[in-house]
């Protein structure tokens, strides 16, 4: 396994791989190795390319090397009363920032504070030819050139090796409270959407099959006033971290877990299995052994899509198949970054 410590070593490895057309399996700590299709290739971990390059709290920007652990960065930000707005799941103690960007997975705060893509201001990456490229930057507004830094989010390492990222951070809220109330699933969807239509300081909303949870975040005054409006009783706020890290009992059995993305107000889907709603209804976990085609079909039917997140047949097609015209554009983009197909080939789709 390669675990380079310098950009020069990575460049050399990539150039060699590209010359001989030998695929690389690019990862950080493999905390999310279950996500996406397997890659056959020389393992190349970014875990040793770590550390904070610049952190200027007044700029609300931090620049880190890709192998920096999410946990280490969050601790640094917390020491200055700041945070990553997208609340990324770690799913492992050593999860890295490069992996956060590569998977594009965001936590419960996503609908209210933006996703991973919204946190990315700039990246440096090494493409298959071995060149080190910088896109975006360290400022909030930047429209020079195509937005390749945000394109990289969620590409699972198939377009380039992210070696450095500048991320937007936010001040930590001064007051926070979690409320919950027992309701049926359909009522939970109604409530979460009704809250989102009002100017409430909502920072998370979820339904675990029994009760609907709301997290309110902001100034003491606005949180207090919103509590009165939402009602319910106070719950342990560690619920959100347990949800984000999939430590709740819901996640602890062996059935395949699907991630169904849906318009937030869509009525609960009639599929066999157990549901858990996050993101105010826009992101729904489904633990089910139903036919994958039925699940994908139902998700598309409500205006969303389904991804086989963990378990089941990951070697099939865990991600939805794009329409032919779109797939053709994906393939041409892949060629523009990685003409010989050496960067995590097949992890996202067999063709990429």
């Amino acid at each position, binding site marked *: 396994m390669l675990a380079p410590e310098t950009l020069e070593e990575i460049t050399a490895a990539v150039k060699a791989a590209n010359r001989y057309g030998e695929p690389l399996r690019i990862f950080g700590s493999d905390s999310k190795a279950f996500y996406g299709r397997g890659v056959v290739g020389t393992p190349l971990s970014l875990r040793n390319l770590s550390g904070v390059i610049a952190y200027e709290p*007044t700029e609300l920007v931090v620049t880190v090397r890709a192998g920096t652990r999410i946990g280490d960065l969050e601790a640094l930000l917390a020491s200055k009363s700041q945070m990553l707005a997208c609340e990324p799941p770690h799913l492992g103690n050593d999860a890295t920032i490069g992996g956060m960007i590569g998977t594009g997975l965001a936590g419960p705060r996503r609908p209210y504070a933006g996703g991973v893509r919204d946190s990315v201001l700039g990246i440096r990456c090494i493409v298959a030819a071995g060149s080190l490229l910088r896109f975006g930057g360290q400022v909030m507004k930047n429209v020079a050139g195509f937005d390749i830094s945000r394109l990289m989010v969620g590409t699972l390492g198939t377009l380039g090796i992210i070696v450095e990222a500048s991320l937007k951070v936010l001040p930590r809220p001064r007051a926070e409270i979690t409320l919950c109330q027992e309701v049926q699933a359909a009522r939970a969807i109604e409530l979460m959407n009704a809250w989102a239509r009002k*100017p409430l300081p909502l920072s998370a909303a979820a339904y675990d099959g029994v009760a609907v949870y709301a997290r309110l975040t902001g100034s003491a005054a*606005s949180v207090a006033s919103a509590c009165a409006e939402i009602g319910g009783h106070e719950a342990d706020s560690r619920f959100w971290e347990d949800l984000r890290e999939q430590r709740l009992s819901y996640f602890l059995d062996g059935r395949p877990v699907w991630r169904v993305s849906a318009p937030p107000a869509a009525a609960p889907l009639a599929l066999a299995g157990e549901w858990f709603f996050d993101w105010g209804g826009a992101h729904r976990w489904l633990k089910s052994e139903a036919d994958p085609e039925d699940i994908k079909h139902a998700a598309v039917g409500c205006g969303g899509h389904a991804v086989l997140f963990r378990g089941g047949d990951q070697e099939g097609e865990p991600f939805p198949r794009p329409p032919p015209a779109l797939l053709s554009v994906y393939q*041409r983009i892949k060629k523009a970054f990685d003409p010989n197909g050496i960067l995590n080939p097949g992890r996202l789709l067999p063709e990429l």
Partner: protein
Amino acid sequence: MDLSTELRRLLPREAVIADPASLSVYECDALSAYRQPPKVVVLPRTAEEVRAILRLCHRLRVPVVARGAGTGLSGGALPHAEGVLLSLTRLNRILSIDPANRTATVEPGVRNIQIACTIGGNVAENSGGVHCLKYGLTLNNLLALTVMTIEGERLELGSQTLDAPGYDLLALMTGSEGLLGIVTSVTVELLPRPQAAQVLLAAFKRVEDAGNGVAAVIAAGIIPAGLEMMDRLAIEAAEDFVHAGYPLDAEAILLCEIDGHPAEIEAELPRVAEVLKAQGATEVRVARDESERQRFWTGRKAAFPALGRIAPDYYCMDGTIPRRHLGAVLARIGALSQEFGLAVANVFHAGDGNLHPLILYDANAPGQLERAEAFGGKILEVCVEAGGTITGEHGVGVEKLNQMCVQFTAEELEQFHAVKRAFDPDGLLNPGKAIPTLRRCAEFGALHVHAGKLPFPELERF
């Protein structure tokens, strides 16, 4: 058969314009220093008409330049002499509003209510504005786009939900200045209106103090809904024009808007005032009522036309820098103003470091336009040296092609060209815009080295 005849077979008669007098209406956008009438203008009403136009242009290898309201400030909609100017203003229907899911789907020609520009233009430039520190840029508020490729293939990018599978082409398309595809519908996320908003005005004796005040507000953990700065020349022009009640003895003022719950505003405003006083604010005024709040903003919003009254022409720049360098960069712009012999006023989105220096000049005075452009180019290079970017929200267009060579390496520019070819291998969509050729950079670079020293040796290079 000639181009306009072919186009008339696809479109109603009045939707194809080819007579010289009518074409001249379209010869420029809001960057009027660049003018070029197109070969023909088309005004489709439907996405299917757009598709047919693109297929024809693809078959005939004719360049296509898309245009919304023509309010762009970087020449992005400058026509091509041999090409079709594709006006999207008649695609102006609101297709659906979904209150339950809080989304709206509109055609690109729908106008943004506050300002004259179209939604399609906002997508093409990834526009910002005064509220993006808190609420994000266009991209952060988009869910989906329908795009026609130059081959006439329809692509659905993004989704009606918060994420989409596959490559994030929604992000790539946003801000791509019409080089990758033609947007035919846009789905945006709708937010609840904040319950209340209040604005505070702070006056400073030194521009640097105002710049430091901006950084200090953010450092205090406050994210204002707007944080705008004006310097003396802008204050005087605005005051003279709309009588906003600005202090005339200040070198700079900041306008800081806080929105949200009334109790939150009441708690935050005194904190903002305290922070700004600690940075040397000589006066801090909270608008007494809604009419005073509106008046404070009227001055800011009227600043550009107000400056238009004191000089025959102005040239608006758009660099973004890290906030901590505001004071130093503004001082540097002041020095350049002396050097070039042209006055400059600063009115800008200080909260996100997005500068809008307005260079005042007279296009009828020989040599002034060229000097204004050279001055502007220098300002953008200073922004890059300070770790920033040449454009925060107006786009590169034709205007900033040379400065792209300063901000990006040859390999990075080549990667942009490779992405462009992935969508448009023949280079028919808005050719010659946004991304300079390496040849152009080589020519500009040669000039550039002659110009001498880096403008900002003391700053770290990004």
